[in-house]
C-alpha cells in the first residue's frame, strides 16, 4: 500500500523558540494523515511540540553535478567567517 502513497518530508520543532528541523519522511495518502503518521513515527518520545509536513515532490533540490560552481567558491573565503573578532569574557553560546 505505502508505495501507492506519496512521500512527505517531516519537520519537528523540538521546543518553543527553536526552528523546525527536518527529521525524515513518511508515506501517507494526504497531508492530514501525514501529520498523524509523523506524530506516531517521530514524536513518540517527546521529541517535539510542533510538526510540519511538506510533499517531498515540492522540494526543489540543488543538483549534485553542480557542486563545483555551487559550493566550492566559498571554500577560500575564510574572511566570511566571523572569526576575526575578540569575544569578551563571559559571553557564552557563541
Amino acid at each position, binding site marked *: *500500500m505505502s508505495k501507492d502513497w506519496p512521500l512527505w518530508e517531516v519537520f519537528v520543532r523540538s521546543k518553543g523558540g527553536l526552528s523546525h528541523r527536518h527529521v525524515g519522511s513518511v*508515506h501517507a495518502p494526504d497531508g492530514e494523515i501525514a501529520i*498523524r*503518521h509523523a506524530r506516531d*513515527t517521530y514524536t513518540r518520545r517527546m521529541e517535539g511540540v510542533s510538526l510540519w509536513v511538506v510533499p517531498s515532490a515540492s522540494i526543489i533540490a540543488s543538483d549534485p553535478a553542480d557542486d563545483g560552481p555551487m559550493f566550492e567558491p566559498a571554500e577560500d573565503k575564510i574572511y566570511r567567517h566571523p572569526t576575526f573578532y575578540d569575544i569578551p569574557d563571559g559571553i557564552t553560546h557563541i
Partner: protein
Amino acid sequence: MDQALFQYVLRLGDDGLILGQRLSEWTGHAPSVEVDLSLANMALDLIGQATHFLHYAGQIEGQGRDGDALAFRRDVMDFGNCVLVEQPNGDFAQTMARQFLFSTWQKMLLERLIGSKDELIASVAAKSVKEVTYHQELSEEWVVRLGDGTAESHRRMAAGLDWMWRFIPELFEMDSVGEEMLARGIGADPASFRADYDRKLLAVLDQATLEAPKDQRPILGGRRGHHSEHLGHLLCAMQFLPRTYPDAKW
C-alpha cells in the same frame, strides 16, 4: 472487599487490555510501517491504561493479586471487557471500524470519569482522555478515507462496520454494578451520552458516504463474563508464556 468497585475497575482495565492485545497483533503486519507504528502506539496507550486499572483492582480485592496476576492468570469467564474489543482484527477496515466505535465511546466515558469521586479513576481518566482523543480522531479519519475512497475500500469499510455494529448496545448497558457506581458518584451513566454518540457516528458515516448498518440482534454479556469464542483464543496467545513459565524474569 468493595465488590462493585472491584468489578467496575476490572471492566475498565479489561477493555484496555484486550483491545491493546488485539491491536498489538498487527505489529509487523500493518499495511505500511507508518500504520504499524500508529497501531502499536495505540496498543501501548491502552495497555498502559489497563496497567493502572488492573493494579488498582488488585489493591481493592486485597487478595495479593497484582495487575499481572489479573491479566495473565484469569480465565475467560472472569474477564469483564465488552464484547466489541475482543472481536478479530479482520482487515484494516474492520480494525478501524472497531476502533472508531470503541474510542468514540471511551472518550465520552472518560470525559465524565474525570469527575469521579474515586481519586485513582479520576486521575487515570484525566491522563487517558488525551490519548483516547487521538485514537478517536485517527480512527475517524480512516473511516472517512476508506468509506469515501475506492470502491474496494468502501466495500471493506461497510463490511467492517457491519461486523461491529451489533456490539454497540452493550456499551450503553447498565447493571447493578454500574448503578451502584453511579449512585456513589464514582461511575458515569453511559445513557447520558448515548444521543451524542449516535449523532457523532451518523455525522462521520455521512462524511464517509456510508450508511449506518441495519439494526441487528445486539450481542450482550461481556461485562458478566459471557464472551464470544474469540476471547479464549486471544487469551491463549496472551497468557501462554506466563502460564507456562510462572514468575519468569527477563
